[in-house]
């Protein structure tokens, strides 16, 4: 476990990584062939969305060393943007004046607030669902990173921002639906195609977005900018003396992470058919961190699978009779165990195992006359 995953960057290793990522995405696309139950598919789509947001955190936390405890903020903002558009897409049932969302009517709002108006356009909503989180991340990042705030203080500031945003949304009930969130939504319809939350179409939509963002993030980590982010994680002061603007790079990581989380939030609204303040509450935000840590924060795929796995287990455990009261305890135990035993999460375990295997195969190979030191991958030697 002394070898960090990021240190393995041979050309062959890059190809292997690409193949692994592609295989997992393919498997995700094949799931509906085996699962006919739309109810289950909806639940799986939900896990995929959570996988996406954990993957986004891996980019900022695992690669750039920015522990963003407010990851759910981007997620929630995305989900509200989508919910606003879908709310305006409903045929008004309870409305007095034309097209006013029902909860506004109940709260004696008479005209649609100005910031709701553009959400009549789905295209605008989708753009906003990404742009708003990115903008918030950039502003937040500007203050944090230009001010050279590091370490635990970054975690505190991001967490505090999340709490403030959450309280604001709950407090402004006439405009946000308050505690209840925004419910009774229309189905998302794009290019004349309607996405029913309980159908293969929504599952595929989520799977496609997940695949695209996973590979986009992979490309980022494989770029020189991605390498510089890892250098920043290691020793940000040293990076400055090579002429790189550390604050700008950290803002990039935070912004891309926010964009992916915002997209995930939008999909979450489509899958769940509502938006609620719980989408940006502290417990979800901390869960994202746990998923990411268990899966392996220095691996995009690891973080993603960690989230899918644990969220899936959470779902199963919290429903089964035996664990009804204790599933939180079980999850906590898993988290503590993984963090103590596997600093690089499950992904670290897998990669260490692969190296062992490679080393063992190499030592059996008669053409190589040298002994193999376990734990050192074979490809390291010339």
């Amino acid at each position, binding site marked *: 476990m*002394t070898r960090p995953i990021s240190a393995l960057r041979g050309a062959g290793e890059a190809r292997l990584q690409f193949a692994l990522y592609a295989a997992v995405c393919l498997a995700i696309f094949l799931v509906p062939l085996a699962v006919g139950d739309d109810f289950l598919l909806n639940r799986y789509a939900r896990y995929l969305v959570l996988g996406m947001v954990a993957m986004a955190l891996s980019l900022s936390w695992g690669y750039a060393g920015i522990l963003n405890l407010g990851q759910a903020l981007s997620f929630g903002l995305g989900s509200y943007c989508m919910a606003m558009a879908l709310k305006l897409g409903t045929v008004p049932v309870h409305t007095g004046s034309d097209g006013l969302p029902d909860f506004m009517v109940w709260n004696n709002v008479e005209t649609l607030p100005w910031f709701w108006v553009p959400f009549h356009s789905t295209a605008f909503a989708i753009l906003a669902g990404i742009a708003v989180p990115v903008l918030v991340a950039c502003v937040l990042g500007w203050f944090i990173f230009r001010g050279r705030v590091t370490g635990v203080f970054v975690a505190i500031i991001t967490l505090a921002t999340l709490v403030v945003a959450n309280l604001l949304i709950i407090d402004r009930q006439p405009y946000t639906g308050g505690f209840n969130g925004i419910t009774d939504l229309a189905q998302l319809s794009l290019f004349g195609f309607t996405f029913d939350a309980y159908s293969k179409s929504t599952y595929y939509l989520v799977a496609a977005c997940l695949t695209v963002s996973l590979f986009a993030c992979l490309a980022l980590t494989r770029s020189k900018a991605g390498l510089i982010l890892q250098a920043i994680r290691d020793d940000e*002061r040293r990076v400055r003396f090579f002429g790189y603007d550390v604050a700008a790079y950290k803002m990039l990581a935070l912004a891309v992470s926010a964009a992916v989380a915002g997209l995930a939030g939008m999909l979450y609204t489509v899958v769940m058919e509502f938006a609620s303040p719980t989408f940006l509450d502290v417990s979800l935000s901390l869960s994202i961190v746990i998923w990411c840590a268990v899966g392996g924060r220095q691996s995009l795929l690891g973080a993603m699978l960690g989230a899918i796995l644990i969220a899936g287990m959470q779902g199963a455990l919290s429903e089964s009779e035996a664990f009804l009261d204790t599933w939180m305890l079980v999850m906590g135990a898993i988290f503590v165990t993984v963090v103590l035993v596997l600093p690089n999460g499950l992904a670290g375990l897998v990669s260490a195992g692969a190296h062992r295997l490679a080393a063992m195969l190499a030592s059996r190979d008669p053409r190589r006359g040298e002994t193999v030191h376990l734990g050192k991958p074979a490809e390291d030697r010339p």
Partner: protein
Amino acid sequence: MSAHLQLSDIRVSFNGFLAVNGLNLSISKGELRCLIGPNGAGKTTALDLICGKTRADSGSVRYAGRELSHMEEHLIARAGVGRKFQVPSVFRQLSVRDNLEVAMCRHTGVFATLLRPARGRGGEGLETLAEFVGLADALEEPAANLSHGQTQWLEIALLLAQDSELILLDEPTAGMTQQETVKTADICNRLKGKHTIVVVEHDMGFVREIGDVISVMHQGQLLAEGTVREVSQHEKVREVYLGSMGIGGA
């Protein structure tokens, strides 16, 4: 000839302790300047002031016609200042190759690096460089696994990869074998002329090998300046520094 690098009347205090107290230093283009002095004389702090790691309380640092004392570190680096630290500082989690890739910093902008692969086209130059410092076999090894000596060499390689106009070396030969010290001296002599170099060093043998002009610091000030010969015969220098090290005029 006007100075390429000019420190004028610099003062820095740490919690009231004057680490640098009215330092003046002037170095011309292409020169290799050695900076010596007893422990705590303020040599490292002087380099910190040039590269922006420490801010001066007063005084100015001018380099190639620009005032550096208020510039951010990365802008100073972009202006052509490279630095090797006294405590070797490399990216321990990254492989030797990736360390060198980071150091090849011709393009520093976010969007420029976003569109470039992590493993640049400078691959060949990179391998030559690794060969040169004896790390060719360790290219894929994380820097954390290197020995102290190898780490020193990696940092020197980083500096060569960065290819700055002004190079600041803080005790480059600390912990090196005799042979390695000779090699480092050789590198310094080769860089001389093309680059302007400031070397902080305690090893007088090394200084004699490379130094044209030597500046001696003591208690945050410049004590003497001159050739090896002149400096080693300087009364005060012998008293505060050379004498105490027992290698006087030897």
